[in-house]
Every structure is written in C-alpha cells, then in structure tokens.
C-alpha cells in the first residue's frame, strides 16, 4: 500500500470512527474551531481569521487528514467564521443604534458645551442594582481609557438599558453623560 492510500485509509477510518456522514465531520470541525476560539478567549488574544484557519488546518493535519483536505476544510470553516462575525457585527450595530435611541428619549441636553453638566436627566425610576452601577462604571472607565470604544459602549448599554441612573455620585453621573456625548461626537465625525 503506498503512502497516499495509507492516508486515504486513515481519513476513511477517521470518518468511520466518528460517523459515516459529512455532517458529523462538519460538526467535529466546528468543534475544533470552537476549541481554538475558547483558547484564544482564555488567553485574551484576537487572531486574524487567516491565522485561525491556519491553526485549524494544522490541527486537522495532526488528526490525520491530508494537507489539501485540511486546507479546504479550514477554508470552509473560515468562511463560516467570517459570516458569523459579520452577522455579529450587524446585530451589535443594530442594537447599539436602538439603545442610543432609548437613551435619547431618557435624557435631553440643555447646553452646547462638551461637559456632562450640559445634560439634564429627565424624571427617573430607581431600577438600578449595585451590579448595574459597577458594570456601568467599568464600561465608562473603558470608554474613557479609549481604544475599546465599541466594546465599552456595548457594555455600557448592557449595564444601563433599560435602567436609568439613580444614586450615582455627581461625578459618576457627569462622566456617564460625558461618555455618551463623546460617543456621539465620535460617531458624527
């Protein structure tokens, strides 16, 4: 038996081992992709899709798949991955716009400068928990320390919507409005 046949047999037995359908193989590929994601998340790194595809390909080769097969499978996974990321961005953008709409209904501006005191909170209902406040504080901190605008704003919205600030210190409140303001300025630039 030559090497090529040996490899084919290896692939065949692998497929048979997990299940004789391509669907199951697809699932196992998804699974290895998930593992790669989990490891990345745990390490706090965000690799480029190409780098991730390369690692999936390497993992598949190690599992006994042919190089070309592994490459094509990793490519298929990468395409799915990109599609998912696009849908995720689409959802985040949509929700962020909706969330901002809610905020604009809750607060109004009285001045024209860029400080938090320009904003007037409208009458509000106390619905915030300590956890909400901590979440909001962390989000504001992240926005203020920059570089994480989108993520920070998302966290802020998660912490606040549909809650409304009560019991925050003046300083915290001011920074909160400032964060929303900065965000809208950045958006309109």
């Amino acid at each position, binding site marked *: 038996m030559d090497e090529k046949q040996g490899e*084919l047999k290896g*692939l065949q037995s692998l*497929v048979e081992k997990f299940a004789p359908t*391509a*669907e199951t*193989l*697809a699932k196992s*590929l998804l699974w290895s992709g998930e593992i790669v994601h989990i490891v990345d998340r745990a390490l706090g790194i965000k690799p480029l899709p190409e780098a991730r595809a390369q690692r999936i390909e390497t993992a598949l080769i190690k599992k006994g798949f*042919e190089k*070309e*097969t592994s490459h*094509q*499978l990793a490519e*298929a*996974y990468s*395409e*799915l991955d990109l*599609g*998912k*990321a696009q*849908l*995720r961005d*689409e*959802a*985040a953008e*949509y*929700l962020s716009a*909706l*969330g901002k709409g*809610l905020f604009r209904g809750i607060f109004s501006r009285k001045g024209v400068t860029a400080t938090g005191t320009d904003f007037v909170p409208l009458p509000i209902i106390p619905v915030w928990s300590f956890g909400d406040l901590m979440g909001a504080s962390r989000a504001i901190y992240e926005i203020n320390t920059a570089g994480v605008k989108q993520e920070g704003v*998302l*966290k802020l*919205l*998660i912490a606040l*919507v*549909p809650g409304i600030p009560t019991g925050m210190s003046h300083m915290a409140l001011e920074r909160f409005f400032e964060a929303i303001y900065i965000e809208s300025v950045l958006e309109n630039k």
Partner: protein
Amino acid sequence: MTTKQFQRLLNRLPHLDGETELLALNIFAGSSPEKKSQLVEFFIGQNQKIDSLYQKFGKKVGEVVINN
C-alpha cells in the same frame, strides 16, 4: 412575542455572544410593542442568514470529503 420567546429565538443564534444577547434582551424588555416586533423581525432575518451559512458550510465540507 414574550420576552421568554424572544430569548429562545436569541438562543438559536450561535454567532451572538453573551453580552450581545443580554443587550438585545434588555432593549426588548424596554421597548414598545412596535419596536419589539421590529427586533423580532431583525433576529428572524439573522436566523435565516445563519441557517444558510451553515447549509453552505455543510455542503462544502461534504464536497471536500467526497472529492478527497
């Protein structure tokens, strides 16, 4: 659609992370009935898109396996 049903719809979307899901739920809870149905429509659309992505993926993997 109730918040519980909306949550079930979101649970079917594998591309959403926990934070985005929570954000969607919070916004849903605080929205008017009209906005709520817009949200539902949007995520049903996402569900269809993700379904076709997975179908395409499954088909491609099937082809690779058959051709190799």
